[in-house]
């Protein structure tokens, strides 16, 4: 792991937007290193400054202070022309796709190559390959208005890849898509990362996106980096309040409320149409946490088991257990269940 070099290095980056009336600190003293070949997630609530951060990486927004080093080049030291060359080595995709509406899918993909001065015939050949990679070979002649959201994002990805970039920046690339399309786009991104070795930086406000494909994550909160590290590490042991807010969106209060007592319920053929748990919650007026569930519905009968974490007050827990037993379910108490 340590032999890998950092493709992007951000050092004490600060970005201040100033208007006549006031100054807004969008980013403050950001330090971040992104390894080559990583899928790096940057997550934060809206307004935390993550979109500004990704725009600083390709200098669409110029930082107020600090340095951005991409592939060994300090961007602030480059001329406009050199900067354009660096931008060509980084693809970018957006929440709203930002395709050229008057160009077909194929013409959208050849666009960056046209700008870079690639020969027309060569650009067309490359567009064909890319359409294949993103699974849209039959849509070459379609205009963006004739494509679905997921297809538009696929064209945008193909376009971003056309100049063989080393980095792909994704700004809320799946936020305008439904869950199943999001999943397929994320799979495509992972595939691209694996096959072509492109470093991917993903900006999102969705936990699930990070969980699905990122290897590393940085949590951005109130213009600064709150926490950074491997996804598994940050998610299992969130240290800062900002990280905990993201990992347990509304689970924090629940955790304190719930006790250490757990119970295992075994279903051996009771009616699967009977909403036992929700009736129990209403009956006992108490909250429980489902720790584990493995249930099957066979011919209208429920088989399997369920582990519930019970409230702290023993009185309430006892009430729950006796209620469940009264429903002819086999219930056993387990202490400190670890999933």
């Amino acid at each position, binding site marked *: 792991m340590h032999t890998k070099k950092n493709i992007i290095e951000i050092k004490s980056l600060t970005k201040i937007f100033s208007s006549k009336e006031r100054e807004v600190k969008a980013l403050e003293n950001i330090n971040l290193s992104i390894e080559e070949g990583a899928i790096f997630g940057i997550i934060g609530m809206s307004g935390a400054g993550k979109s500004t951060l990704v725009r600083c990486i390709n200098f669409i927004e110029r930082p107020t202070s600090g340095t951005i080093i991409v592939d060994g080049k300090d961007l602030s030291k480059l001329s406009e022309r050199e900067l354009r060359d660096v931008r060509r080595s980084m693809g970018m995709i957006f929440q709203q796709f930002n395709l050229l509406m008057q160009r077909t899918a194929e013409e959208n993909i050849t666009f960056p190559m046209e700008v870079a001065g690639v020969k027309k015939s060569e650009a067309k050949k490359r567009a064909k390959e890319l359409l294949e990679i993103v699974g849209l070979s039959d849509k070459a002649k379609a205009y963006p208005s004739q494509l679905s959201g997921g297809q538009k994002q696929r064209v945008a990805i193909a376009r971003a890849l056309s100049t063989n970039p080393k980095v792909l*920046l994704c700004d809320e690339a799946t936020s305008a898509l439904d869950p199943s399309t999001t999943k397929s786009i994320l799979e495509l991104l992972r595939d691209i990362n694996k096959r072509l070795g492109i470093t991917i930086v993903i900006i999102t406000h969705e936990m699930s996106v990070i969980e699905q494909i990122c290897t590393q994550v940085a949590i951005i909160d109130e213009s600064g980096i709150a926490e950074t590290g491997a996804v598994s590490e940050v998610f299992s042991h969130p240290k800062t309040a900002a990280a905990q807010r993201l990992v347990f969106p509304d689970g924090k209060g629940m955790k304190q409320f719930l006790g250490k007592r757990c119970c295992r319920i075994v279903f051996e053929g009771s009616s699967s149409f009977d909403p036992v748990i929700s009736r129990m919650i209403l009956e006992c007026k108490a909250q429980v946490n489902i720790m584990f569930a493995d249930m099957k519905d066979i011919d209208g009968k429920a088989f399997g088991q369920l582990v519930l974490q019970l409230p702290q007050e023993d009185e309430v827990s006892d009430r729950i257990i006796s209620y469940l037993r009264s429903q002819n379910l086999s219930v056993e108490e387990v202490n400190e269940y670890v999933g």
Partner: protein
Amino acid sequence: MWDSSNVIMILVGLLETLYMTFLSTFMAYVLGLPLGILLVTSEKDGILPLPRLNKVLNLVVNLLRSIPFLILLIAVIPVTRLIVGTTIGSTATVVPLVIAAAPFIARLVESSIKEVDKGVIEAAISMGCSPFQIIYKVMIPEAVPSLIVGAAIATTTILGYSAMAGIVGGGGLGDIAIRFGYYRYQNDIMIITVALLVVVVQVTQEIGMRIARKMDKRK
């Protein structure tokens, strides 16, 4: 009273009107198109910010736009004489028409270009486009349907202006309508010329809209 000379006169008038209108529209676009684009790109948050130039251009455009055409028509007579050599006839009318229409067209172009999604321009910057490439590869092609609608509006407006030039002997249908229809009370000639102007406007507008619809890939 309807002899062939009247018919010929009206036909010549129609041709003169078309000549003035289309030549003026073309020349006004030669000036107005770059001016309109410059109005957008030179804005403070535009792709080539030149705030001072932007202020000056806006001032000049507003100034020219606020002068009533009839006044402008007479005021620019010395300029017309300098450029064309005469101040009457349809070629002479082209000069005030271009001066009046160019700023109007600049505003039309400005609003069309501003319709282009900012996100698309941002994407173009992220792909390493130079400002010039953004103008001719993104802004103009993406705004084409809107630019064509604007051109239809501009052409019909200029047609209306050209008729006004009849007051100072500008030639064309407007000239005939004023000389025969108005000064000599020949209502039939008045009605025919006005009817012809209506037809030309309708046809121009319809052609413009059809082309725009055909070029628009957004739907």
